[in-house]
């Protein structure tokens, strides 16, 4: 299900949070509303961790990760690194890398199998990505923009890209990523997709300016509306089965 939230009255929730299938990182805000929104949705499934990176709150744009690992820029302090290592599950490899383009979230977009990167990324970084995240790396641009991490957001089930992407580009990306892609907007016409929303395989969080049309597009392309059949069965099981023999 897609939820509309705000971080301290700002609709760019993708800047202040990072959502994957195994964990969720949230920025430290003045009020607890942002954190509790994530908690309410995800608490029973994955850990929700409050953190900062390099003393800043724009964690969504500085780090990149999936269920296998998390990559942090060189500006991350040791305490933050340690905190993250402690809070995250053991199978998630937390690694700090030395990369000139330190806003990793803007340069790299990934799901559990494929990653798209900025065309000027270091070769070493590319290898790190392939090792730590366990993904296949492709250098691409989206609608002529090199910051692929900002202008697209994709999960294992679907993806949303910059609205000006041409049909040929869309086809090409779709073949690379092996997921259905759609060009759309978020936060009432904003083109910076990844800054306006954050998504994983079963849930998405968008800025509160997102219109109903955009929300329906997001829900349909990321296949969030089908609901979780397992959850339904789980609920019904309690009423269906009295007791185990």
């Amino acid at each position, binding site marked *: 299900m897609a939820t509309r939230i705000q971080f301290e009255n700002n609709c760019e929730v993708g800047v202040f949070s990072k959502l994957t299938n195994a964990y969720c990182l949230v920025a430290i805000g003045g009020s607890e509303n942002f954190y509790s929104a994530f908690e309410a949705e995800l608490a029973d499934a994955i850990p929700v961790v409050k953190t900062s990176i390099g003393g800043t709150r724009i964690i969504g744009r500085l780090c990149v990760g999936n269920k296998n690992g998390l990559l942090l820029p060189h500006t991350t302090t040791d305490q933050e690194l340690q905190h993250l290592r402690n809070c995250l599950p053991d199978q998630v490899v937390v690694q700090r890398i030395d990369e000139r383009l330190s806003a990793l979230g803007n340069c790299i977009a990934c799901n559990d199998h494929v990653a*798209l990167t900025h*065309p000027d990324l270091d070769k070493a970084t590319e290898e790190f990505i392939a090792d730590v995240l366990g993904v296949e790396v*492709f*250098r*691409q*641009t989206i609608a002529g923009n090199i910051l692929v991490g900002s202008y697209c957001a994709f999960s294992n089930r679907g993806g949303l890209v910059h*609205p*000006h*992407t*041409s*049909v*040929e*580009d*869309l086809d090409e990306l779709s073949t*690379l990523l092996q997921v259905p892609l759609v*060009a*759309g*907007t978020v936060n*009432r*016409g*904003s*083109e910076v997709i990844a800054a306006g929303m954050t998504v994983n395989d079963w849930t998405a969080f968008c800025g509160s300016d997102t*219109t*109903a*049309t*955009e929300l*329906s*597009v997001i829900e349909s392309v990321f296949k969030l509306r089908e609901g979780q059949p397992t959850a339904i069965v789980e609920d019904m099981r309690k009423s269906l089965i009295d007791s185990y023999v």
Partner: protein
Amino acid sequence: MLPGSAPAAGGTGMFVPAATAGTVLCCMCGVSMQPNPANMCARCLRARVDITEGVPRHAAVVYCPDCSSYLQPPRSWLRATPESPELMQILLRRINRPLARLRVSLSGAEFVFSEPHSKRLRLKLRLRREVLHGIVLEQTHPVEFVVHDRLCDSCSRAQANPDQWVAVVQLRQHVPHRRTFLYLEQLLLKHGQASLAIRVAAAPSGLDFFFGSRSHAARLVDFLATVAPIQTSTAKQLVSHDTKSSVYNYKYTFSVEICPICREDLIALSRQASRDMGGLGPLVLCVKVTNAIALLDPLTLRVHHLEEKKYRVYNFKAALTSKQLVEYIVLDIEQESPEISIDGSRYQLAYAQVARVSDFGKNDTIFTVRTHLGHLLNPGDHALGYDLYGANLNDDDMDTAMTRYSLPEVVLVKKSYEKRPRTRRWKLKRLPVEEDAANKAKGEEEKRLDEYEAFLRDLELDPEMRFKMDLYKNEDYRSEMASTVGDDIPTVPIEELIEDLTLGDDEDDDGEEAV
């Protein structure tokens, strides 16, 4: 080649991949559309953003109903007809400043119909403005102008006192006829010198021109000085006086007196005058009046030009004027010397035997005279001349001249032609002169008409005089008349005529277009 590398960065450089724009859903209404910087369909954009916010919907213009002009603040009044480009310019200037302040640009404007008496002018403007993310939106915007009536300065001045004049030129010539004024009237029309006059009134022996400013009057006086021998004197009268700013308002009067000698006047010169002019015979004929008088001695064919100032020294009057011309019939003519040309006019000395038409069948009175019209006269022609034989003159100079010299009995002045038909191919324009109804004598109307007829006849004879004025084509002229009239009579050739300008929707001239 890496599967992910962009094709434009490839080696060839010439290859540009096809890029068809996909469709996105409008973020507001969900309709499928081409992506644009706002990612909203045009309708949602227009609904959300109103670019005409802050642009005035009502404005006011000031209009003068008398001269149908509109005020352009602070002070200029511009003439404009309804729904004309000038009016649109005036209206657009009224709302230009708010438009510029809002950074809205005008891409078109047109008039919307409004009732002529509704005192409202409606414009439909097409405005263009840049909104979020660099999109330029265009929207129509109606503006209504309320028209306020107010007399402009010149109309209110005219309204308050229509006869208000500041300067007057009083043109006088103390002769019994008005030929000079008819001629001057045509000259003024040709040069447009009377266009600035508020009023033109006729006075007992002249004309009065009223002007709104002294300089206009002075301009007319300067013009008159170049075409007629005049003497001017000026006077001014204090009308009002502003003590604070020391501004004095006057009424100026220019008294212009034209020399009383006219064309075809016979003058007897005094001994002094005759001697000063180099022994010009005592009898002279005035042949041309410009800003100097040309005096011709008919017996020696000598012309002397006398300036106004020199004239004032002698101040002689005409002994005989054109009213006293008598008709003669030429019985015989004998050229004495070859034809000469002085000042553009041709003269030829000849001996002529003439008899008065009144005497012609009755008695044998024949005069043999020397005349300067040898080139024109043939036996059997009629001529007009002064009858000194039978005249009773009241002129001292003439008396002295008669006693000292032997004067000719007849001085022939011009050839006369038979009466011509009523309608002429050409006509003249007249100045709008107010007649002085109080001072009219009985029979003056008829006298004036006769004088005018004589003036027109003179025009036909004299091509030089015609050159100085404008003749217009007479639309009512019937061309069948031309064939019946004898060929000897000089008529105005059609090349000299000007097409008169008539306003209104008449069909193109047919037939008469010989030019």
